[in-house]
């Protein structure tokens, strides 16, 4: 048998397998990051650094919001 043929067949299969592994790990990592980010978004912590807390609800509004949401449940 020709030497080149013997060497070529496993290399082709190896190349295909390597691409599958790379794509699989990339997709798996992206999915892991997306899920982790979703979880972090659900438990989001905000630090409003503006001097008058422009982007934060006042204590009274927060209390009303919590009360109304618990009543709706």
């Amino acid at each position, binding site marked *: 048998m020709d030497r080149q043929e013997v060497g070529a067949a496993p290399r082709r299969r*190896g*190349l295909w397998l*390597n691409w599958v592994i*790379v794509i699989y*790990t*990339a997709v798996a*990592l*992206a999915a892991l*990051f*997306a899920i*982790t*980010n979703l979880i*972090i*978004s659900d*438990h*989001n*912590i*905000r*630090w*409003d*650094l*503006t*001097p*008058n807390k*422009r*982007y934060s609800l006042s204590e009274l509004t927060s209390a009303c919001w919590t009360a109304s949401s618990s009543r709706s449940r």
Partner: protein
Amino acid sequence: MAETAATLGAAAAREETVNVAAARLGFSFGRMFAVMRKELRSYFAFPLVYIISGIFLMLSGWYAYTDLKFFTTISFSKDIIQNYWQMLLTDIRLGLLMTIPFITMRQFAEERKLGTVELLYTYPLRDSEILGGKFLASTIIFVMMLALTLLYPAFIYSIHSYALFPLFAGYLGLLLLGCSFIAAGLFISSLCESQVIAGIATIVFLFSLWIVNWNEAAFESNTLDVLRMLSLFDQFNPFAKGVIETAALSYFIFFITFFLFLTMRSMEARKWTGRR
């Protein structure tokens, strides 16, 4: 004579053994910093980095002036300074979009074109050390560019004092956004042979991440939520307002890690694809 040749041969063999042993060791920050220094030297040896920094500073200076003019002549509100920072930081990110791809484009693509990448791979260095060095070098260039824009807030502070914390949040956002651009740019550069194609492809990719949710009416609310999550620029908005959110922080960190991981895989692919 023969004795000298034997001594030299032994020394060369010893050096080779040391190099192989170094490569077998774990990740070394020393070697990574050596790559970083080499990259910085090559950056500053050519005029490209000076031209790119000049263009970026010209753009950001223009934005700083026109935004200030807008707020002092047209818009009057209680939080004029806060609104000004929000608008300026949002404009500076466009400057970053146009300039950072030109910093990262040469990292792998030019080395591959010149053939120096083979030389780099033959050094006793891990791929992670090469990548870390290149990423750090690009980040240092970017931080130097960004640090020069601090002159505008300093100038305004000398006229009228204001709260510095919202500005700190904004610059933290710009830093994370710039590092994300660098990570994406490095990955695209590692795929390309030509640095011009790498630069243009990076701009197109980052631009697509910006415009992905422009037409909000065209999508269902669930789809829109996913697109908002993908949009790199939407994640920057809380920082521009002076708010730090853990969700946005984690998004940027994951984005950078993901693209550095892809670049590592792209570098490793040379071992089994046979390309340089």
